Structure formats: structure tokens, C-alpha cells
């Protein structure tokens, strides 16, 4: 080992020396390749001109790849990033480990109280903000007004699941490649399980009871999953078990979906110039089942600074810039108000210019109606609407997602998918030693 260390050190010295020159004030930002982040990357000239001496390096990756990289890095203290894009799931867990720098001092004009309370609450631990929200989202129904009219139906502002199912079946026209409803089917805790967990909440189901026992053997989960699989088989697109957010977005923009229940940020993508159906999109709240909970989630992609970074000050400057009111105006100037990153600031929704955007109010209402601390009909021991904020969740929910995806693809029955989900969840929880 010692011999190896010396040899490797000698070899590494060259690389470190070479890298030294560029290290002055370079902030390395890891981010998701979502539309709003790509836009941010294009607008960085504004930041660098205001902050000469700070250079930005971008690592833009697809969501899952990004999550693995930043988690490995932060957990092993690899120190490769100065700013990380993470979500409401990671922030509380990481903050409690002491992995993140608190962001209570982002400058006088940052106006931290302007952040939407629901979003701010999800990103704070013990009253300190640990990640600054870049955009916030809930989920809602996006539908084609023309197809709805052709089907002779009218979308209420707050539909029920029964209405959605009827409308989906009425709108479907498989001969012309039009499918009544597009929903996530691709396995993943942030893909189909985000949708299904939120939906299950509105059906009265929950992940765990108060003693942390898995609940997939409950009738509510059976009802949820049967409803979902039946609906998708009758009125969903082919290959739905491989469709995530992006695939559904493509389908919807291409005019192949009657309805799509997904993230509120999608609203600007389905109504912009790249969408072939931009003129005939309507919005409604996520459906419910009359049990007092709607099937909408709450998420915020946020910028956090890992503890131990060498560039903390520069990183804070960047985070403050990217999540400021000024940034919203910068985007509005360049790309129009509809493309401003939504769901983070109260002032944005009070702005008369922004109120003209068709989906603004619906987005705000959706965000405000989600309650991460009280997500389900029956009481639960966890926080989080479409996730359970414990470290074990992502692995186990992805495995459960695989089971549900298999049920959707017809590879297995709903009953056995639920039985498998129950077994593997309980197995993971037993191993992790719950109840703690």
C-alpha cells in the first residue's frame, strides 16, 4: 500500500500542479439537464460580468446520473463540486448529516421571506435554510381543450379520479394515435413512484403505518394500482412502462395525449413554440377521491453548497444570483415571463405581468395545496408527499417502482406486484432496523 501510495502520489503531482493554476476562483456546479437549468447555463454571462474573477464550470447530467454523482461525492467528501442541484428529498437528510452549508446569509436584498412557505419549509432544518429553491413544482392535470370538447365533456377546476377515467376513455382514439391519458410508468422513485405515491395518498393509502410497517397489502394500495393499470391499459399510450416525464412531454407536445398529470413546470413546455398543441392546453388541479387529499406532490429543485468546499463565498454569490428576484427578471427579459422558473417566490405570483401567464395561478394553488408534513389520509410517521424522507427510500422505492412498472407492462399481475412490493419494503425496513 505504501509503495503504491508513493507511486501514485508522484504520478498525481503533475496533475495537481497543472490544475493549480486554474483553481483560483472556479465554482463547479452540478445540475440537472432540465430546461430551466439549461437556460440558466446560457445566462451565466450576466453573473460573470457582475462577478469578475469567478469562473463557472458546469456539469450537466440527466437526473439519475446526477444524483449518483453528487451523492457519492458528498458522502465520501470527494469535494468535486461547489454547488449541487438537489431536491426536497435530499435536503433534510443531508442537512442533518452536516453535509450542507446553511444559507441564512445570502445578502440583504435576497429577501428570504419572499420564498413560498411550503417550499421554504421543505428546504429548512431547525429554521435554517440549507438549499435555495431554483424552481418549485407540484403536479396538476394538463389537458387538451379541443379533445375534451370533442368528447363532449368539460373539465372541472378540481376533478375527481372518476371523471379523469371517464374523460380519458372518451378521448382515446387509438387509430389516430391519440391516447386519453399519459402517466408516468418508467420505474424510479422520482419517476413512476412520485406519481403513484402521490396518487395513493388521494386514495387513502400510505407507505407505512405509525409503527413503520409496510402497507402495500392494504386495500387502498390495491385500489390505487388497479385503477392505474386498468386506466393505462385502456386509455394510455403503448410502451407506457418506459415513459417518464420526458417521454410523456414529447408525446403531449406531439399531440398524442388527451390528458397528462405531471409536474407543474411542464406547463411552460407544453405551451411554448416547440409544442404543436400550445393553443389548446387547459389546466386543472390534480384529481382526488373525495377523501380530503389530492394526488399532487411538492418538489423543489434547489441549489445547495456542500460543507467543506474551498469556494464557499463564491458559491454563495452564485446561489444568491441564480435564485434571486433579479434572475427571474433576467429570464423574463430574455425569454418572456412564461419561461421564468416558477414556484419559488411570492412576489412572482403578485407580479401583474406574471399573472397573465395562463398556468400561474393553477401552479400556485397546486403548490399550496400540498402538505409534506401531513401527506396522507391516515397518520404516518414520515414527512414527504411523494417520497418518504428516510435514506432507505430511494433504493426501496425504485425496486417497488420496478414491480409496478412490470404490472403496467403486463409482465406480472397487480396482486403479485403488490405482494413483492410489500415483501421487499418490509425486508429493507427490517434490515435498517425500523422502527427506530
Amino acid at each position, binding site marked *: 500500500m505504501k509503495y503504491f501510495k508513493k507511486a501514485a502520489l508522484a504520478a*498525481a503531482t*503533475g*496533475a495537481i500542479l497543472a490544475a493549480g493554476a486554474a483553481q483560483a476562483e472556479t465554482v463547479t456546479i452540478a445540475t440537472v439537464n432540465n430546461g430551466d437549468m439549461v437556460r440558466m447555463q446560457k445566462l451565466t454571462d450576466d453573473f460573470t460580468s457582475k462577478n469578475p474573477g469567478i469562473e463557472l464550470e*458546469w456539469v450537466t447530467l*440527466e437526473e439519475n446520473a446526477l444524483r449518483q454523482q453528487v451523492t457519492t461525492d458528498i458522502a465520501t467528501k470527494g469535494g468535486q463540486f461547489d454547488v449541487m442541484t438537489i431536491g426536497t428529498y435530499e435536503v433534510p437528510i443531508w442537512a442533518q448529516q452536516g453535509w450542507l452549508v446553511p444559507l441564512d446569509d445570502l445578502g440583504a436584498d435576497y429577501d428570504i421571506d419572499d420564498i413560498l412557505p411550503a417550499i421554504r419549509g421543505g428546504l429548512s432544518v431547525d429554521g435554517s435554510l440549507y438549499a435555495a429553491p431554483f424552481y418549485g413544482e407540484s403536479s396538476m392535470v394538463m389537458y387538451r381543450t379541443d379533445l375534451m370538447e370533442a368528447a363532449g365533456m368539460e373539465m372541472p377546476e378540481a376533478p375527481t379520479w372518476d371523471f379523469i377515467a371517464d374523460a380519458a376513455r372518451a378521448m382515446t382514439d387509438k387509430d389516430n394515435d391519440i391516447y386519453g391519458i399519459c402517466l408516468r410508468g418508467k420505474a424510479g422513485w422520482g419517476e413512476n413512484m412520485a406519481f403513484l405515491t402521490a396518487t395513493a395518498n388521494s386514495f387513502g393509502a400510505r407507505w407505512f403505518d405509525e409503527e413503520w410497517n409496510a402497507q402495500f397489502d392494504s386495500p387502498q394500495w390495491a385500489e390505487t394500482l388497479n385503477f392505474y393499470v386498468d386506466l393505462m391499459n385502456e386509455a394510455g399510450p403503448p410502451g407506457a412502462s418506459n415513459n417518464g416525464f420526458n417521454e410523456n412531454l414529447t408525446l403531449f407536445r406531439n399531440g398524442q395525449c388527451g390528458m397528462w398529470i405531471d409536474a407543474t413546470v411542464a406547463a411552460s413546455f407544453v405551451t411554448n413554440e416547440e409544442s404543436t398543441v400550445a393553443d389548446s392546453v387547459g389546466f386543472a388541479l390534480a384529481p382526488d377521491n373525495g377523501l380530503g387529499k389530492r394526488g399532487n406532490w411538492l418538489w423543489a429543485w434547489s441549489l445547495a453548497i456542500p460543507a467543506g468546499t474551498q469556494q464557499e463565498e463564491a458559491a454563495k454569490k452564485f446561489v444568491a444570483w441564480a435564485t434571486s428576484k433579479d434572475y427571474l427578471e433576467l429570464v423574463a427579459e430574455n425569454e418572456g415571463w412564461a419561461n421564468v422558473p416558477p414556484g419559488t417566490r411570492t412576489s412572482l405570483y403578485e407580479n401583474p405581468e406574471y399573472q397573465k401567464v395562463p398556468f400561474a395561478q393553477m401552479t400556485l394553488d397546486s403548490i399550496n395545496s400540498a402538505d409534506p408534513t401531513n401527506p396522507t389520509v391516515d397518520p404516518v410517521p414520515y414527512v414527504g408527499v411523494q417520497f418518504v424522507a428516510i435514506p432507505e427510500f430511494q433504493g426501496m422505492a425504485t425496486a417497488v417502482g420496478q414491480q409496478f412498472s412490470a404490472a403496467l407492462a403486463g409482465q406480472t399481475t397487480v396482486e403479485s406486484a403488490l405482494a413483492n412490493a410489500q415483501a421487499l419494503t418490509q425486508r429493507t425496513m427490517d434490515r435498517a432496523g425500523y422502527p427506530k
Partner: protein
Amino acid sequence: MARQVTLNRRLINTAVAWSLGLLIFFPILWTILTSFKTEAEAISLQPSLFGFDWTLENYQEVNARSNYPRFFANSVIIAVGSTLLGLCIAVPAAWAMAFVPSNRTRGILMWMLSTKMLPPVGVLIPIYLIFREFGLLDSRIGLVFVLMMVNLPIIIWMLFTYFREIPGEILEAARMDGANMKSEILYVLTPMAVPGIASTMLLCVILAWNEAFWTLVLTTTQAAPLTQFIASFSSPEGLFYAKLSAASTMAIAPVLILGWFSQKQLVRGLTFGAVK
């Protein structure tokens, strides 16, 4: 060809071979064509082979969003660097195995090959921790080292099969003339082995160029090669087929062209030991 072949037969062969060849090549061709389409055309339900409005906008977009020259340079440095370093270590080893074999030679060689069968994920965390310890994360030198290790067994094996075909008498003649081990390698073996070494090199460059596990896990910006470049265009929000195609074309073109120009040497090296 000593055998007589009728023109008809030749025509049939040509037709069959060309259609199969085009079929196998088609996914690549389709990717290249798609990279010149607009996003809307790329997902059109009525795809067209050539009759679309050719556009360069995807390439412009891809270039505007990422620093292609740096990714490209890193790929070249890492692929070529790891190959050269690997050769430096593998040539003496293969030489020794081919000309001074012992009972254990076969075992060692097979053990080396079996190291290639480990799933890299199994040792990911240890390697990551070691890299962090030595400050090698996101450094080209670290990646050169890892890819060298990953390909070393293949290099040694290929060189070994190649060297073995060099007649031993030549060496003995050289030894008679008083050549020591070093000059044996330098003046006698190397010239005879150059074609084999060249083809080994080609294969290794290609394998290192396409390696997509370690290159993704161990790099972020400074040392990131083209695999990382592709990763940033895989399934973003919105329509992406055309941009993905453009990025893919840019990532595979260099090695495709290299491979096409050198396929003869490549195949010869791969098959030298096998085809006799």
C-alpha cells in the same frame, strides 16, 4: 481466387451482402441523418429518409451548450495515454511470457484475463475512496491509470499471442551475436512486432474511447471525456432526438473514422494467434 464464379452468382452475392451491410449500418446512418433534422421532424410519425429540410441548428445548439473541444481533447489524451502507458508495461510482460515461459505462464495469463470479468461497480467505492485520498478525482492522470489497468489484460494477451508467432531461432541467433535482453527487445523483436503492437494499440484506443463507467464516475469537468458529453444530452426535458443525434455523431465520428482507416491492422492483430 482459384475457383470460377459466374457473374450471376457474383451479382447475387453483392446484392445480399450490400443489403445486409446497409441493414447493420442503418442505425448509425439514421443517427447521422437525424442529427440534420429539426426536433419536430426527428419525432415525426412519418419519418423521411432524405426528404427533409437539412439543418445545422442541432450542431450549433450542442456547441453552444458545451465545450466540445475540451471533451474531445480529454478523450484523446485519456485513450492514447492509457494505451501508451499500457504498452510500456505490457510489452516486457508479454515478451517474457512468450519467450521465457514457465509452468505458471498459462495460469498467470488466464488470471490476468479473469480480472477483466469483475463488475466494476463492485469495486467502485474503494476506487473512489483511493482516488479521493490521492487527489485524483477529475484528473486525466487518474483516468489514464484506471483505463490502462482495465485494458492491460487484453493488451498483454494480444501481444502474447502475437509474440509467440515470432520464431525462436531469430532470438537465438541474436543471442549468439551477444545481444542482451534489452537489445533483443529493442533491435530484434520490436521491428518484427510492430504490426502486432500497432493493432493492439488501435483496439485499446477504441476500447478506452468507448469506456463509459469509470469515465463517468471519476470525472466531472476538467478531465471529462466524450462519454460525459453524451451523458449531458441523454433524455433532457423536451424534444431531444435531433440534438442527441448530433452529439452522438460528434462523439462517435472520430473513432469511427479511425477504425475504418485501420480496420485491416486491427483485425490482423486480433486474429493473429487465433487464425493459423
